């Protein structure tokens, strides 16, 4: 108990040195880009910035899928020469339902639907219901897979959109089954980002129905959509998508050569260009609507065949709105709408104030505890102080190694750790003192003191560890940072008190061989 082998000593000092080395990157610049360099990140509450929690509207995803499925079912039935009534999407049942023209057609209806292409095997299944109608039901598994895919797709698109705004060092990650966390350091007014993320940017090119009147209820397969600039003006747009904006390869804002108005120029990929050419060839003279998120941007008359796959969208754009639309089209459409459900923005001034407040508290607290230890525990208290400073160094070192994020509550956690850390030293010292009072020799008292106190130290730290691991698991945001620093702090405390300060005390004893102990 009372001796440290040279190897053990070397390991302890080596660990301390390592901790010190790990801290260095936080205080100096990286000499060359290839030097391994890990440092603590400052949380948004310390450096300023925004935290956004986005929710993916999975219900809308399913609604969309049902709408397309309705369209596809209609097309397959018509192609097979079969009739139907009451073709509707039933969100509650996750199904598209319709009634066959006659009961005899039920079997050919089912056969026609069985032949429809599916995104994944078993994506949907048709079955006749007791009332004679037919339900085409989406499978839960397939929708789950689609939702999962939509989430990762959304993350990718969110990343592209945010990167395009020039944000520095954004962090984007998935959280739970339908959420995305976005951290934007340095952006304390994230309105533009929020506007960009709040747009689904699903662009489609669809024909208008020339026979439908904007005032009467539209025929099946046609929907009245409002104009973007004037929501009161509605146009009868076919549900069938002729060309999908997802096939765009490029989009740029620019000014129209003749009018000088802002416009968005776009280019399709090969497949898109072919479809675009086909549609324009077959529908010369008809009106073609450009629809963005269920609003019509413009509905020009097709003047001629467009073979190259490039075109221009005009509307009443400003420089900013044209640039943003181009950005959104380049980044791609979100598979489902996103909603901001939590936002926390902190200005840079407040962050600087917080760092100052945290640093002052940490400094003052450290000094108070150190003075207390020297006054109440003498030389051994001084050793405890040395271990305490080392504890802080090791905590910073480990946080750097993990490239952890330091938040204001995290700084509070560090400070409390320092207050709690000397508890182990106090336990050891009190124990040694008791043993001395019982008449033991200096050596025996120290031995007994360490031995008896160790069990208590481990018990008391284990309970604290439990409470903070819970906090880390269930906490969110800043609280997690707090729990993390305390958890790391408990581990470093055990090391610095059970090894470092003990080694110092034992070393002192070995050098002096005193008859009495300064307790």
């Amino acid at each position, binding site marked *: 108990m009372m001796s440290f082998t040279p190897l053990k000593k070397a390991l302890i000092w080596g660990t301390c040195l390592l901790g010190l080395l790990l801290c260095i990157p936080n205080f100096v610049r990286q000499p060359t880009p290839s030097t391994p360099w890990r440092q603590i990140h400052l949380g948004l509450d310390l450096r300023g910035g925004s935290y956004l929690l986005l929710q993916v509207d999975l219900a809308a995803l399913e609604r969309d899928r049902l709408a397309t499925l309705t369209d596809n079912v209609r097309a397959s039935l018509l192609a097979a020469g079969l009739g139907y009534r009451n073709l509707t999407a039933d969100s509650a049942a996750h199904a598209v339902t319709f009634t066959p023209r006659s009961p005899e057609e039920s079997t050919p209806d089912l056969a026609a639907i069985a032949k429809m292409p599916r995104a994944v095997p078993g994506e949907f299944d048709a079955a006749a219901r007791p009332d004679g109608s037919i339900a085409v039901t989406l499978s839960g598994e397939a929708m789950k897979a689609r939702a999962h895919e939509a989430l990762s797709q959304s993350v990718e698109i969110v990343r592209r959109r945010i990167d395009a705004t020039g944000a520095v060092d954004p962090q984007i990650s998935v959280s739970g089954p339908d959420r995305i966390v976005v951290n934007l350091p340095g952006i304390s007014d994230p*309105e533009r980002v929020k506007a960009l993320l709040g747009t689904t940017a699903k662009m489609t090119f669809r024909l208008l129905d020339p026979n439908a009147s904007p005032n009467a209820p539209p025929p099946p397969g046609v929907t009245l959509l409002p104009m973007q600039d004037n929501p009161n003006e509605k146009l009868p747009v076919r549900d069938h998508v002729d060309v999908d904006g997802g096939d765009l390869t490029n989009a740029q804002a620019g000014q129209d050569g003749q009018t000088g108005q802002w416009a968005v120029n776009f280019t399709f990929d090969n497949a898109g260009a072919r479809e675009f050419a086909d549609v324009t060839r077959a529908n010369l003279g008809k009106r073609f609507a450009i629809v963005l998120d269920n609003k019509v941007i413009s509905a020009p008359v097709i003047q001629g065949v467009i073979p190259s796959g490039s075109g221009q969208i005009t509307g009443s754009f400003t420089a900013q709105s044209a640039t943003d639309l181009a950005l959104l089209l380049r980044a791609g459409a979100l598979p489902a709408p996103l*909603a*901001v*459900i*939590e*936002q*926390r923005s*902190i*200005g840079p001034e*407040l962050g600087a104030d917080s760092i100052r*407040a*945290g640093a*002052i*508290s940490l400094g*003052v*607290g450290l000094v*108070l*505890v150190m003075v*207390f*230890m020297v*006054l*109440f*525990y003498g*030389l051994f208290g*001084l*050793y405890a102080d*040395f271990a305490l400073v080392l504890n802080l160094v090791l905590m910073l070192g480990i946080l750097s190694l993990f490239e952890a994020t330091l938040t*204001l*509550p995290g700084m*509070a956690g560090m*400070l*409390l750790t320092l*207050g*709690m850390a*000397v*508890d182990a030293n*106090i336990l050891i010292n*009190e124990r040694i003192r*008791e043993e001395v*009072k019982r008449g033991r020799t200096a050596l025996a008292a120290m031995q007994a003191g360490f031995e*008896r106190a160790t069990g*208590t130290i481990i018990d*008391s*730290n*284990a*309970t604290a560890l*439990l*409470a*903070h691991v*819970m*906090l880390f*698991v*269930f*906490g969110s945001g800043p*609280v997690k940072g*707090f729990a993390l620093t305390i958890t790391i702090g408990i581990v470093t405390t055990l090391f610095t008190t059970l090894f470092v300060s003990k080694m110092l005390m034992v070393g*002192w004893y070995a050098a*002096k061989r*005193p008859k009495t102990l*300064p307790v």
Partner: protein
Amino acid sequence: MAVIPAFRPVLRFVRDDTRIGFMKGRFAGLATSAALSIASVVLFLHPGLKLGLDFSGGVTVEARTAGPADTAKLRTALAAAGVQAAGIQRFGAADDVLIRLDPAGSEAATQAQQAKVKSAIETAQPGSTILRIDAVGPSVSAELFRNGLLALGISLLMILAYIWFRFEWEFALSAVITLVLDLTKTVGFLVITRFEFDLVMVAAILTILGYSTNDKVVVYDRVRENLRKYRSMPLRELIDLSINETLNRTLGTSTTVFLAALPLALFGGESLSGFAWVMLFGIVVGTSSSIFIAAPLLLLMGEGRLKRAAQPPKVR
């Protein structure tokens, strides 16, 4: 380090031979604690905790106005923008203002509100800067609240299990009852001080629980040791002896934690000082409950039952 002279400590809290009869005051201690806890529960029911943004949902905007904050002007501008401000409050410097909005019904409405507040501030006092905006939608706040309570509950259960595993059930049960009493008093403190109850406060309460448990474990550890050592000593005397023997340590550690938290309360800034004050309160409550609540409970539950001399005292 051997060159440093072996200087002795200059201060002590109590003499080593202190033998205070704490258990004489056990009923007074329990009665006081019960009364305080009942009062806290009453306060919790009425007027209740002031829920912070994390749990209530809504919008908080903190701004530094150009020139001293003019709350009347701000109120007019907010009303004109169609926003109902729940509170406009100055804090810290004369040009710092905090605007608080009640939770809106939906996520989208919450977002719309905060945009209106920003423009209203700009209208009322042009040139103001926004220091902080927090907007929490209703679904998130409900979830945060649930997780906060879950963390508290599971922590208590795990502490119970751990002490049971390391000691005996009498120790575990009296520790957890004491912790619940500590918890209710902390809630009462929150109600009286009107500090907002938010996620950071849950962290403070969990830290208090951790600290308080730590304190009880040290006393219990000594009780267990003395149970083995003094086989015939009445439990009441034995517990008193254990508390007295660990008194310097108990006071020492609570002082260092107190000293560490004090600067946070004084200089920690608006966001951390509430947290730190609650910590300070919890340290005082947790330390005194080890002596006046946890120990008497152990005495009540353990009288004549706690195992003695499970193994003979170690002879060296």
